[in-house]
């Protein structure tokens, strides 16, 4: 991978994945994460 290609997916564990947000995530991002942001 070129250093200028940014990862869209990083695996933390089998159950925890870091992945690029898509537009379809906007509602859940607002409802579950941003409105109830802990830190």
């Amino acid at each position: 991978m070129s250093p200028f290609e940014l990862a869209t997916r990083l695996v933390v564990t089998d159950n925890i994945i870091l992945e690029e947000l898509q537009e379809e995530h906007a509602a859940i991002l607002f409802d579950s994460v941003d409105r109830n942001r802990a830190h």
Partner: protein
Amino acid sequence: MQQVDDSLQFIRRQQQLRAQRQEFVLGIFVQGELAGCLATHLLDWSHRKTTLGYWLGQEFTKQGLMDRCCRRLLEYLFDELRLHRVGLHCATDNRPSRRVAERLGFCEEGILRDHEWLYNRFVDQVVYRLLDSEFPRERSG
């Protein structure tokens, strides 16, 4: 963010910034459910540095989730993107965020007075840094 449209605009803006290699956001998905986000703000390729941001939904706190996710992202930033320095700013009274930073090995560098307008008031921010050489990598095997 005040409404869903703000979240949508945020995602679209992040897609543009990613395409320009300026910064990127990754959602934290736990068993397929979006739990929070991790972000790099302003990737500075000339000086091989960036700053980290993170936030988590209330129900996903106190499980060590952010520590594990940040550690994975830091491995990526240092070992694959070959960055030298990662900074982190957070409100001085944001104890949960500060504990995450400190557990990851970030060092406090100072306080920025009235640096951010939050909750209808100016708040101080603490500045942390983590250098590639300071990142406590976990040994495998």
